[in-house]
Every structure is written in structure tokens, then in C-alpha cells.
């Protein structure tokens, strides 16, 4: 059994807005194993970022509100702690990097000072020691001339360099978990590859777990051990990366795969977008969130929330929240339905 470092259970987050209450995250559960990467995939607005930011306690409250659930880091609940207690794990046990490195660093502080700040606050280091360590960290993230670079300001860095500096900053206290909220979305493709490479390498050397939020399945395939597919504030399918790609058991996962471009030149594959748009989370549907867009929707899906089906197709835990996994459901050829052969 893998060593679980972070266990999230039934997390729910709401935002009170002028238009009403948005139920952004609706009962999300997942585990992160030590030294492994969990990718959370889904389209914009499905609650990926809110999920991890709620765990970190950095969603603005109000309007945000954590309405339920727990998040256990090494067995201790860290969800909804007041800032003083949350700061015992923020930046120490869990580091975080963000989507846009250009705006994620303070423009009026040098890179080195921003990194050493973390060390001074959490490790009680002196400014000189912390600055020296900051240079080492920049060096570790493969920033050339780290000593000189540490004295520069964010505007003197390129986007890829800034993301490296962000990673260096988040690694300052040797965290056991790194949360990466779309770390490569704002970067161009070649830089993306370098950043992912760096993250994978640091994961090996530092033995840390990564929660990688992305909407890019190519990134998932490259980086992830475990995958959670999110849709409309819920995890609709989760399992190992092979389960998700080769034994997709939720129509939404199938839809994402259909919409992903490949570089095969046989011309057989056409990109099929998922039609329609996600449901209004002001009034979340009573049934399956994917009902309106699902090509295989059944009558039961409209009003009845599908339960989580544990699939027995592999050793790892593979779950899908879909009525098609019910023993009475019809057999869909494109979909992985373990046990469906026996049903016919």
C-alpha cells in the first residue's frame, strides 16, 4: 500500500457573489502518495484551482467559504486553519507555484530576497545565510549565474526563468508536497518542456509529491502517476495514469481524449470537441453534471447523482462517477466497463 501524504476527503467550497452562491467544489476526495504526482485535469472553471487553493487556505474569505470536508497532511487536518496555524505548513510542508510567473512575484523585491524571506520566516535564518541558500536554490533550478540573478528584480527575468525562480522559492524549506497550479500554461512550448523536466527531476532528488493542475492531457501523460479528472466541481474519474488513458471509464474522459491533438500523421484522427458548456454552478444539476453534454446520457442521469463506482480492472484504485458503470447499464463500445461483457 502506498504511503499517503495528503488525504482530501469530501471537500466543498462555495463563493458568495452578487448573483448568488457558486458551488465551485462539490465533495472532492483524493489522496496523494509520497513521492508521486497527482494530476488534476479538467476544463476552465471546473474547480481545480479552487480545490488546491482551499487546501492551502489562500482563497479569499469572504466571498469564499469552505463548507465541508477535511484535508489531512500526514494524518493531521489542515483545512480551514487560521493563518497563524496554517503558516506552520504553508511554505514549509507544502510549496506552491502558480500559473502566471510574470505576476506571481513581488515586482519591487529582488528574486533573492523573495526566496530568502521564506527561509528567514520559517527557518529563522539570518539574512546572510538565507541569501546564500537562495543562490543555491536558484542554482538547483538551473538558473545560470545564480548569484548575479538573485540580485535582480522580476522584470529582469523571462517567463521561464521566473517560473524556475518560483520553483526555487517553493522548494526553500524542502516541502513534502509541491502544488503546481497550471505551472506551464503561461509559457511557450519549449519552455514548458524544460519546466516539466525540472519538476520531474526535483521530484526524484527531493522525494516530494506533486499535485499538478493542468488542462493539458499531454502534460498529464508525461508527468502523472495518478490522475483525477474534474468536472463541474466534482471528480468524475480517478485512477492511475494508465487507467485514465487506456481504460477511460467516464464519457467526459473519453471526450477530453477525443479533443486532444496528436502528432500522428495518418490523418485518421479528427479532433472532436465536447459540445455545449459546463453546467451553471449557481444551480448545480441534481443529476450528473455532464448529462447535457454526454453522448451516452440515459434517463437516470438527469435527476440522480451517479455514485462512485470502484472498477476492478487493475490493481490500483480506479473510480468513475457514472451510471454507465452500474451493473444494469448498456454496453458502450468506446468505454471501459469492466464486467459489462458478463451483463449482456
Amino acid at each position: 500500500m502506498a504511503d499517503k501524504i495528503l488525504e482530501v476527503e469530501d471537500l466543498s467550497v462555495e463563493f458568495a457573489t452578487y448573483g448568488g452562491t457558486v458551488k465551485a467544489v462539490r465533495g472532492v476526495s483524493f489522496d496523494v502518495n509520497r513521492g508521486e504526482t497527482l494530476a488534476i485535469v479538467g476544463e476552465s472553471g471546473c474547480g481545480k484551482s479552487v480545490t488546491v487553493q482551499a487546501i492551502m487556505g489562500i482563497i479569499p474569505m469572504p466571498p469564499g467559504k469552505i463548507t465541508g470536508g477535511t484535508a489531512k497532511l500526514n494524518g493531521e487536518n489542515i483545512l480551514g486553519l487560521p493563518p497563524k496555524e496554517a503558516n506552520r505548513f504553508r511554505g514549509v510542508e507544502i510549496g506552491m507555484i502558480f500559473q502566471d510567473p510574470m505576476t506571481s512575484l513581488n515586482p519591487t523585491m529582488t528574486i533573492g530576497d523573495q526566496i530568502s524571506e521564506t527561509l528567514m520566516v520559517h527557518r529563522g535564518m539570518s539574512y546572510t545565510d538565507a541569501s546564500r541558500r537562495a543562490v543555491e536554490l536558484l542554482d538547483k533550478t538551473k538558473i545560470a549565474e545564480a548569484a548575479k540573478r538573485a540580485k535582480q528584480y522580476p522584470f529582469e527575468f523571462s517567463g521561464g526563468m521566473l517560473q524556475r525562480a518560483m520553483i526555487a522559492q517553493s522548494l526553500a524549506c524542502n516541502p513534502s508536497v509541491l502544488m503546481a497550479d497550471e505551472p506551464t500554461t503561461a509559457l511557450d512550448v519549449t519552455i514548458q518542456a524544460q519546466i516539466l523536466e525540472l519538476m520531474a527531476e526535483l521530484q526524484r532528488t527531493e522525494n516530494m509529491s506533486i499535485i499538478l493542475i493542468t488542462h493539458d492531457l499531454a502534460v498529464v501523460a508525461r508527468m502523472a502517476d495518478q490522475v483525477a479528472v474534474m468536472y463541474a466541481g466534482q471528480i468524475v474519474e480517478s485512477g492511475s495514469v494508465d487507467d485514465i488513458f487506456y481504460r477511460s471509464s467516464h464519457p467526459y474522459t473519453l471526450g477530453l481524449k477525443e479533443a486532444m491533438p496528436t502528432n500522428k500523421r495518418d490523418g485518421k484522427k479528427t479532433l472532436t470537441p465536447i459540445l455545449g458548456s459546463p453546467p451553471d454552478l449557481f444551480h448545480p444539476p441534481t443529476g450528473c453534471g455532464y448529462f447535457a453534454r454526454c453522448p451516452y446520457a440515459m434517463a437516470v442521469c438527469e435527476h440522480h447523482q451517479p455514485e462512485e463506482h470502484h472498477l476492478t480492472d487493475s490493481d490500483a484504485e480506479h473510480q468513475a462517477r457514472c451510471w454507465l458503470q452500474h451493473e444494469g447499464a448498456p454496453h458502450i463500445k468506446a468505454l471501459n466497463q469492466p464486467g459489462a461483457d458478463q451483463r449482456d
Partner: protein
Amino acid sequence: MLAYTLKRLLAGMITVWFIATATFMAMHMVPGDPLMNDKAVSAEIRKNLEVKYGLDKPVVEQYFIFMGNMLQGDFGISFTQQNRRVNDIIRDHFPVSATLGLLAIFFAATGGVIWGALTAIYRNRLPDIIIMFLVILGISVPSFVFAALGQLMLVNINSLLGFSLIPVAGWGTFSHMLMPSMVLGLGTMALLTRLMRSSMLEIVNEDYIKTAKAKGLSPMRIFFKHQLRNAILPVITILGPSIAAITTGGFVVELVFAIPGLGRYFVQAVQQLDYTVIMGTTVFFGAFLVLMVILVDIIYGFVDPRVRLQ
């Protein structure tokens, strides 16, 4: 940095030259001249005076004579105050105005930053609402009203105490300066408070504040080290023009508090068409303000690393 400063100074000199030329032309377009006053002077005396002051020469020649003298730092002799050199008027009275103005700016800037930060912290709660109400008051009520109210308050305090704690008017000691500089800085303080508030609220939503939280920094540290410094930038930008507004706009306050500042001479000279004093005070004020704006820009470069290289 040095090249930047020199470039700005050169541009500033051209600005001052424009100010001088425009003032000179405007002044001579106003009907009448400094020798026209209530007491009728005979044509002969008038002629002598015109020769003495050089008013008999064509305007263009007068302009060149004036500019030549100005370059040597000589603004000439006042028309209305017997044998008083304009340079002396400026030397005697400008330090008073400058002290008052800079003290007012100091009040306005510190007050604006503190109140603005407070309103942002207490956004939409009672302290915010109270301060923002006072800010609207400070912006819309003219300074002479505040000046009179301030004096009234001092009178009441002093008569309650039975001795003069803070003088109601006059000039000399530091306690003389307190009330007038506060009154003078009030409008600017209100403006800066509003600016600071909106800039603080903008920065709360910046990504790097989220980063700072994720780093596990305390709210106090985030506020002082990450929010405040970035929020102050727009306030510093507007400080240059604010110094302009305050030092030239000090006239009314100086009058109410009986302060011997330059503002009085500035206004009197225009009323009496005292050519040399108009030119002297205007050009001097102009040069002072241009210098202040340059100074603020240079200070800005130290606070915001992004502008240093340009």
C-alpha cells in the same frame, strides 16, 4: 541614472524658459502698467520713471533685457515697494512658504498613506465609511473654511486652558506652523487617501499577494513588505504635482494665519501689475516646482526598480 537626471534638468530649464516667456507676454498684454495708480502723476514724472525702469523701450527689447538679467540671477527692483529688490523679497519670504508647504506635504503624504491603508483594511466597514466621508469633506470644502475653523478650534482650546498652547496666527516657532500646514495639506491628504485606498485594494488581488500567503508569511509581513510598498507607488507619482498645488495654493492659508509667506507678494504683484515682482515670483515658483517634480521622479526610481533603467 546621471544621464537621466541631467536630461531631466535640461528639459526643466526649457520649461522654466517657457514659463518666463509666457508670463512676460501675458503680463504685457494686460491693459495698464505699474505706474498707473490712484495718485495722478504728472507726465514729466511718469516719463522719468519710465526711463528709470526701462519701460520706454520696445517690449521686445525689454524682454531681452529681462531675460539677460534673469540669467544672471537678477530679477530687478520692485515697482511698488520703494527700492526693494525682487531677489530680496524672494529671499525673505520664500523660506516661510517653502517650510509651510513642505510641512503640509509631509502631513498630506503620511496622512494619506495611513488613512488610505486603514480604509483598505477596513473596506466597507465602519472605519472605512467614516474616513471616506471625511475624505469627501476634505476634497470639497475650500481651505479658507478649514483655516477659519482651525483658528476657532485653537481659540477655544487656548481659552479653555487659560494660556496660549498653540498660537492662533503668526509665524516664528514650530507650534505656529502646525495648524496652517495641516489646513494646507488637508485637501491633498484627502486626495492621496482615495488614491492609496484604491491602489491598496487593487494590490490585495495581485497574484504575488497570493504567492506571499502560500509562502506562509504572516498577514502583518504581507501587509508591510508586499502590499504597502507597491501601493505607495501611485501616491509618489502624484506627489510632484501635489507639491505644486500646495506651495502655490498656500496664499489663502498664509493670509488667514497672517504668515509672511511669498504667496501674498505673488498675488499683490498681479493686482498692482508690479512687472518685476510678477516675473520674479512666477519664474522662481515655476523653477521650484519643476525641480520638485524632477526630484520626485528620481525618488520614484529608487522605490520602483522598474523605472531605474529608463
